[in-house]
């Protein structure tokens, strides 16, 4: 703290002679220090070893009130070491030499012999033990006070992020002794975010003191500590209980909205996984009337491709992931075309047999992966830009990998839609979906369309695998766990309809997520499954039935 700060102390929060004394006392200290600073160092505050010794000496008492005053004095002093001292005191690592006048900080108190450093010079002082060093004891009141002091000290230091952290820690820690110091910080702080947090901390203190006007500042604040102390006040018989209750109700309803938003986000991200997994299936089913039970394994192949590329490019998960997008598509599409050419082509018009044959292929692919790689799950690393969460506020944070999957799903969907709408292949695919015989008589080579469609569907499954590798581990059973769900999406959404698949996948994801808090994850899934089974009874064509006489 530079001395000029102290002159800005506002005494409104204090009462009577004590405030007067504090103010005068501060002024005296400031005057002395100013004079001293002018001589020694105008930039970096330093205190003499004697002064430091005296500050620490004051802590050496059994009276906790005196100790608290000493800690206060340290915080108000200009000792450069003061944060370190207070932190060590808080951890019970600040101590005094048992036979001597030196003070030590214990850097590691796990063993019998502790490495210690000199508390004033921070020079290595060898080792100490319970016998040679007397650590200062603190009680709970002192601990709370120390936390507040440290937080307000860190408000002066470091960049905006550390100051913001410190300001957040201040909420609920402000007390009668520190309120003025904290209020003083407010005037010097430039960052609006930090100011807002300090405002909250001060307002909370004032509300706790019974100041109803400060409630306005707390309106809509999502901080847990604010909520907790407001609910304590609302439940008490304080004069502002009713008003605090009102503010609390406002906070709770805002919080509930954000929680709904969070559920929606989780639902949409789960739904986007379903859409990615199901959309390839929807295309092949719509065009060829073929149930491809190996679809899940094509997803798995896409995920394994991601893992392989990452193994080839160690240390560059971002580049590996970007390369995996075309890689996963091509690998899965190649397998898909292979399956179509070697098996499905010969089972034309026999959907049940095709279902069984592709199921056999799925078993073979699973076992192949188990044999070639391992039955164990593999972890695919996420690049930095997909790690962590985007914390919008206390109640709403969006994990970046799920956000990424959601965006990826929308991009893939848009690309597929454009492909179907604007390209020659899309035109032919739509023609074959609507009426195979008519399309063939118009010169569409249906067999070629089948092959390309199957490759396209398989490739999209591969893309789903790339996306899945970012949110779950990659293992041989990856595909199986999604296949039943993807079929439900296809059936729910209506066969061969991209929009239907999108809407069905997203709504199944959201419904599942909404049900989960009430009935648990497993039962939610069961309910969704039963719901879709019942839905198919009512509308066997799905949500978006194809128009015309096709079905």
């Amino acid at each position: 703290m530079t001395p000029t700060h102290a002159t800005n102390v506002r005494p409104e929060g204090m009462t009577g002679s004590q405030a007067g004394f504090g103010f005068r006392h501060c002024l005296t200290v400031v005057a002395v220090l100013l004079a001293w600073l002018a001589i020694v160092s105008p930039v970096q505050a330093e205190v003499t070893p004697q002064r430091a010794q005296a500050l620490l000496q004051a802590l050496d008492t059994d009276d906790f009130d005196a100790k608290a005053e000493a800690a206060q004095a340290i915080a108000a002093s200009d000792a450069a070491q003061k944060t370190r001292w207070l932190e060590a005191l808080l951890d019970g690592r600040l101590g005094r030499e048992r036979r001597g006048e030196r003070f030590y900080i214990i850097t590691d108190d796990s063993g019998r012999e502790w490495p210690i450093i000199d508390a004033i010079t921070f020079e290595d002082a060898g080792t100490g033990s319970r016998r040679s060093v007397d650590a200062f004891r603190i009680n709970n009141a002192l601990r709370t006070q120390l936390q507040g002091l440290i937080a307000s000290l860190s408000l002066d230091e470091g960049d905006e992020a550390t100051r913001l952290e410190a300001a957040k820690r201040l909420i609920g820690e402000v007390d009668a002794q520190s309120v003025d110091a904290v209020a003083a910080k407010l005037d010097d702080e430039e960052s609006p975010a930090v100011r807002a947090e300090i405002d909250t901390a001060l307002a909370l203190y004032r509300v706790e003191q019974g100041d109803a006007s400060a409630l306005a500042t707390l309106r809509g604040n999502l901080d847990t500590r604010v909520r907790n102390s407001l609910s304590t006040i609302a439940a008490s018989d304080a004069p502002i209980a009713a008003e605090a209750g009102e503010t609390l109700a406002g906070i709770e309803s805002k919080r509930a909205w954000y929680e709904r938003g969070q559920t929606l986000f989780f639902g949409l991200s789960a739904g986007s996984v379903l859409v990615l997994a199901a959309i390839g299936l929807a295309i092949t089913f719509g065009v060829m009337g073929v149930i491809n039970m190996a679809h899940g394994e094509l997803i798995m192949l896409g995920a394994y491709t991601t893992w392989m590329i990452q193994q080839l490019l160690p240390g560059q998960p971002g580049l590996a992931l970007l390369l995996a997008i075309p890689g996963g598509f091509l690998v899965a599409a190649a397998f898909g075309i292979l399956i179509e050419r070697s098996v499905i082509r010969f089972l034309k018009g026999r959907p049940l047999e095709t279902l069984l044959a592709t199921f056999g292929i799925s078993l073979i692919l699973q076992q192949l992966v188990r044999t070639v790689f391992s039955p164990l799950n593999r972890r695919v690393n996420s690049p930095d830009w997909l790690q962590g969460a985007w914390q919008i506020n206390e109640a709403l944070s969006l994990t970046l990998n799920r956000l990424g999957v959601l965006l990826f799903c929308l991009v893939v969907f848009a690309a597929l839609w454009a492909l179907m709408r604007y390209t020659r292949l899309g035109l032919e695919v739509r023609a074959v979906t609507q009426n195979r015989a008519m399309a063939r008589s118009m010169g569409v080579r249906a067999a070629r369309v089948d092959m390309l469609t199957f490759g396209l569907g398989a490739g999209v499954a591969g893309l789903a695998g790339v996306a899945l590798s970012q949110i779950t581990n990659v293992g041989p059973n990856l595909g199986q766990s999604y296949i039943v769900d993807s079929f439900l999406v296809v059936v729910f959404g209506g066969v061969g309809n991209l929009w239907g698949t999108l809407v069905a996948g997203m709504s199944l994801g959201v419904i599942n997520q909404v049900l989960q808090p009430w009935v648990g994850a497993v039962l939610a899934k069961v309910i969704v499954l039963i719901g879709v089974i019942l839905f198919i009874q009512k509308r066997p064509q799905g949500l978006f039935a194809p128009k015309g006489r096709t079905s």
Partner: protein
Amino acid sequence: MSLATMFKRNSLLDERSTWITSVVLIVGMLAVVVLHALPPDHAWHLNGSVVSLLGKYLTYMLLALAVDLIWGYLGILSLGHGAFFALGGYAMGLYLTAQQAPLAPWQAVMAHFPVAALAVILAPGLLALVFGWLAFRSRVTGVYFSIITQALTFALMLAFNRNEMAMGGSTGLTRFDELLGFALAGEGMTVALFVASGVAVLLAFWGCKAVTRSRLGRVCMATRDAEARVRFIGYRVEHVKLAVFVLSAMIAGIAGALYVPQVGIINPSTFAPLFSIEVVVWVALGGRATLYGALLGALVVNYLKTLLTGVMPDAWLFLLGGLFVVVTMFLPQGVAGLMAHLRRRREVTA
């Protein structure tokens, strides 16, 4: 048409395959019992574990019969028949655990054998009735039906994994002591269960044969081949389907009930979609719409499975997967169809 006239006019045993199958089943069963009765040091002696394994195969054969009845004769591919099998198994498991300590108060009633026996048939039957009524009424057919049966068994698997069901959660029901007052552990019980399973297979085989050869069976086959026409002629197709579907589910339930005391455990993995679809490949390999093909397929595939999972576990899924592909592509009528084809060729050349 009464049962008696049906037997007179259209004798069950006038088909060669039915004769042969019945004789093979009876002789095989007697042989196993006799070989087991031989002194233990005899070279031909079958020990209890082999008898128990064969008993397990018999319950699988019964399940395959149930699947063939609806897939072969009605054209309904159920990918969820394991659910009915497991429900029968759970009913039996509840009876066995209720003997000692029921997991929930309501399960005490299952300690009475008649109640349990009724549950073995009614639980799968009722599920099939409700599910089938919903599905057939709204004309869910073909692959759609297959997929929702798979979803059904998947949902049940998830549900039975929950501890709140009081069905033992993911461990399932196990540690059974006695059946009808006799200890389950003894050799005598092993043989008795084997014989009971064998008799059940035989009776179910004759029963299914009778159904398929009755007028009901002909309507079934007509429905399989041209559903719309049968409907236009005036048959209530959904009633026919529902009746046979429920019958098939009940047979599957009995199979499950016989299976549980022989393997000593029932858990949610029996509901797994993979198991149900394995049953379908037994039938596909043996040959659809022959009944004896289903029995043959179940026996052969399961024997291969026992053989391979012991020697090289990795190869089993390759073989199973390969079977699916090869059978559907090259043997659409299964082994039974292949044999019939060869016989016809011989007759033509002769």
